[in-house]
């Protein structure tokens, strides 16, 4: 298990846990990010800018603080 921040660029991970308050969980849920779904990390820059992820057909730019609260799993099927 690792945070979305640590996920390698271009890799996909399955969300297992969101370590955040209800507000953020709801917000993420509204955009389709919830435990169980696959999230792909699309790009990340060298400097501390937001990271770009895609969930289904939605692309979302998300700040690093938020990304660090989303825990994902890779590899296991």
């Amino acid at each position, binding site marked *: 298990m690792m945070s979305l921040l640590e996920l390698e660029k271009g890799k996909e991970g399955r969300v297992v846990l969101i370590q955040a308050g209800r507000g953020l969980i709801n917000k993420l849920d509204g955009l389709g990010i919830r435990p169980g779904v696959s999230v792909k990390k699309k790009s990340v*820059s060298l400097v501390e*800018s937001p990271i770009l992820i895609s969930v289904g057909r939605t692309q979302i730019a998300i700040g690093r603080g938020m990304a660090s609260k989303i825990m994902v799993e890779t590899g296991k099927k």
Partner: protein
Amino acid sequence: MREKTYCSDCVNVLIAGNPNVGKSVVFSRLTGINVITSNYPGTTISFTEGFLNFQDKKYRIADVPGIYTLEPVSKAEEVAVDMLRSGEIIVNVLDATNLERNLNLTLQILKLGKPMILVLNFWDETKHTGIKIDVKKLEDILGVPVIPTCAVTGEGLREVISQLSFARASSFKFNDSEKWQAIGGIIEKAQTVFHKHHTLLERLSDITIAPVTGLPAALGVLFVVFNFVRFIGEGLIETVLEPAFTNYYMPFILRLFSSLKIDFLRGILLGNPPVVMESFGVLLTGVYVPVVVVFPYILSFYIVLSFLEDFGYLPRLAVLLDNFFHRLGLHGYSAIPVMLGLGCKVPAILSTRILESKREKIITIILILMSAPCMPQTAMIFSMGARYGMKTVGFLLAIIFITALIISYLFNMIMKGDAPELFIEIPPYRMPNFQILSKKIWLRIKDFFMEAMPMIILGIFLMGILDILGITAFISSTLARPISYLLGLPREIAAVMILGFLRKDVSIAVLAPFNLSAKQFVVAGIFLVMYLPCVASFFMILRELGIRTALKIIFAIFIIALSVGSLLNLFL
């Protein structure tokens, strides 16, 4: 903001849905009311309402700001959710290319038990994105009318209107805890996805948002935007507006008032002397500044901006520059007004309305005012600076930019608070629809003439009175000695400063006869870029921030400009 137009026999219809699914376009199509729409989430901030008559029924239709969930996270969403509860019919607009996520809100809305219809917008896009939705099946499952539309072309909107009277509460039942399973079930039955290749626009999207390729791309976009704005703006001024003003309008006005002998009135109306750029006559300068100087750049900037908005470029730019702006305590979204400011400060200041807090607005306005000259002034600096070499010009612009960064950084430290982390959906690129684009540009131009132009004219009127009463002359003669001493410039700089308030580009041009040294040119250029905003933007700031804050900022900037100029004079 939430007061309602009185209409007792109207049926309340609310247009609701996720951000950026085209609710406002649907709204315009239904009511005939023009509202600004763009291809990025959150264009609708407050709500708009309009009316529709169909088969003896009157509908009051409201465009609700976009929401992702009925459990409100922000203040704006709270308003939207409250509104939804008061509606009689809900028109739920969905992005057909993103059905699964959009159904999340739909399922929450149908729990309200209100009559509703579903509108599957962007229907045309599903075809080339390899998505097939069985509309009939969706209707059967949810038990409400489902209508595919393409709102920008108006396809399917007639159907929406005629189905309003068939809106009904959904019969679909599910457990809240199994919401996503329920959605999964619907998707499985009603949607088939074919494999598809990446489209050209998708590739372009990846290129323009990844930092390595995105930053050069952004520079490229900026370059094209500049040249376009200059080409159209200057073209309009030189070939149409300037000749029309000097050859027709001005002689006409002068003849009209030739018999007016009261000096005071003449001074106010025509200026004294009646020369456009040397006085403040309401009918001459007051018309010249907004129409001939500012309008061409407003028009050309809005053409490019509106295109980029509808294409979907702006959120990508916001993401790319977010890190940079966060260091200044701002949001990536501040990139939009700041970029506008490189063209003309007036639309830039207007666009700070998209920012949430006053703090963000203030810092952004400071950046707008200080980080770079406006387009006409930049052009003038380049042409005047040519004889000192491009290195000098580059140095001048660099000093301005660095000063702006330091100052906004300081303001960020003084003013408490931080911008929230960026969290936005990046819409796909879409080819703008010509009709919608031109309507939007027209709306903005109208807004400029109705809202900004009266402010500018009023400003020039007030300046004219100060001028006639001799207050301006008094100020300039008092300031002339200390300022010319501090900056190491000729005394006439005071007169140039007054002129620069009217036209910042001309203030640079009139430096020509002084035969300044390179050092003097740099000092004068930097000072004249920063010392005061032009009369048009001055009154825009007044309107956006209120008189007290505006005056404080402007005074602070003046002091900073003077200090930077003096320091350069000392140490260069």
